[in-house]
């Protein structure tokens, strides 16, 4: 940076300090508050709250929901990215807009739409119920709402990257005799694996942490349809603050770890790009 675009030192220091102070207040204080509240009475009560059977059930359910929802969106995202980046068809912009649509929809509406479809007064609810299928207030509803909310994550990270990488390597592989799956597994996937991993991580964090959408479809049955974020809410509403904050701290840890992993992945890919340049 040249002297002309360099701000004077006092301004620089003041701006950095102000930025750091703001960031600390906005981002670090909440994290610290969660931890402080969780450990207000020491480790023991916090640990008891987390190892409570209802909490364990909530953790299990959260893991299960994410384990179903994330692969669905990863598969869909990869398929969409392949079609958009490596093939020719009309309507790509429309498709991309539709894929990103769920990001602009309120989580509560994301849950609501499935209640409208499968709830007691929904379009298909009564019929499905007659055959014994429970969707709302049951696992399928939680999964559907979670898939909706985390829908664009993988597609969004892959599409621009795969478009930027172009098709030459894939075309070269095709002229050398490789079939579709061989091209994908041996040529495309190795080139996007870190981005895919980052997308999956973000998708997973959101899936495990989702609150509004699952809150609408869950029915809040303890031990059965309560995910971790919902469990936090119940504990909080029952004035079991230590328990609520202890489970929240666990979720916060998930967020922080995700963030750290994402930053690491970005550093890795940036370094690789640097090597190529």
């Amino acid at each position, binding site marked *: 940076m040249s002297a002309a675009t360099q701000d004077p030192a006092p301004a620089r220091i003041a701006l950095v300090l102000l930025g750091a102070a703001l960031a600390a207040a906005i981002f670090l204080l909440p994290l610290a508050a969660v931890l402080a509240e969780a450990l207000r009475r020491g480790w023991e009560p916090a640990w008891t709250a987390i190892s409570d059977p209802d909490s364990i059930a909530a953790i299990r359910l959260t893991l299960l929901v994410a384990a179903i929802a994330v692969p669905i969106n990863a598969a869909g995202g990869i398929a969409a990215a392949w079609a958009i980046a490596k093939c020719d068809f*009309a309507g790509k912009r429309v498709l991309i807009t539709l894929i990103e649509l769920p*990001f*602009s929809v309120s989580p509560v509406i994301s849950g609501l739409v499935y209640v409208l479809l499968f709830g007691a007064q929904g379009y298909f609810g009564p019929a499905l119920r007659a055959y014994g299928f429970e969707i709302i207030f049951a696992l399928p509803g939680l999964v559907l709402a979670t898939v909706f909310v985390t829908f664009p994550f993988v597609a969004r990270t892959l599409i621009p990257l795969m478009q930027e990488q172009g098709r030459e390597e894939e075309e070269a592989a095709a002229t050398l005799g490789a079939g579709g799956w061989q091209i994908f597994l041996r040529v495309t996937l190795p080139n996007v694996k870190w981005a895919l991993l980052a997308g999956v991580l973000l998708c997973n964090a959101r899936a495990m942490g989702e609150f509004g959408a699952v*809150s*609408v479809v869950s029915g809040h049955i303890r031990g059965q349809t309560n995910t971790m974020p919902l469990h936090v809410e119940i504990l909080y509403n029952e004035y079991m603050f230590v328990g609520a904050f202890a489970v929240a701290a666990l979720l916060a840890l998930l*967020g922080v770890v995700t963030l750290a992993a994402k930053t690491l992945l970005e550093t890795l890919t940036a370094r690789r790009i640097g090597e190529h340049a």
Partner: protein
Amino acid sequence: MGASAIAPRSASRHQALPGLGLTLGVTVVWLGAIVIVPLAALALKPWELGAAGVLAALSEPRVLAAFRMSFGGALAATLASVPVGILLAWAITRYRFPGRRVLDALIDLPFALPTAVAGLALTALFATNGWLGAPIEAVTGWKVAYTPAGVIVALFFVALPFIVRTVEPVLRDLPAETEEAAATLGATRLQTIRRVVLPALAPATVTGFGLGFARAVGEYGSVIFIAGNMPMVSEIAPLLIIVKLEQFNYAAAAAVGLAMLVLSFAILLLLNLWQRRLRRGQR
């Protein structure tokens, strides 16, 4: 809706790379089942009440108050996040200082932190006995938690990263020559920033504003703990949907949901047009 508009350019047109049929098929099924059909249900359901019924459901004072809270709160919070966002983006793109990478990573925290956790944390911070709530009340006498101010604080937290992350790449790619040119033409540093740098950031800022605003309008988890949820005062529109659902009034819930979506898409569209005009003006 979209499925018919998306089709291979012509049936006989070969593709150099295989897999279009499979991948587009998977995409359309995935998109249709998860997004299109459910949103179609949202678009249809309210009309069970009839047009007059929808209007009546939306013009209830409690509904109107909730819309004012959600949209007004989102507007205030996103506006407040613009200067802070630009400042943070400036700090992490223009300066090298210890902890810059940590700061950079932290900005994404609202993306990665579960919303319920953020809500709980902000409530604890801004409660009358909280680390921030207590001093604020002592100095100004204002309460933050359980008031509309609390809603705005939570939405600010949610919207901020969108501003930073859209402004940041533009700021980074801004050619140093333009600033140097301004300096050679006799502009002071402040003049350069005000007349050269900030206008260049305008389109990205509008885009970031739109993204942050859209997210904030629909936000639920971060808000619900700190809002206090008093009808007519600090109740947000998404909560009202849940209230209507608990009353088994699906159509009214759908009406509120649809109105929220239509309104926020209309605002996004306007922002998009504005952003394009700004961008064109710069070319």
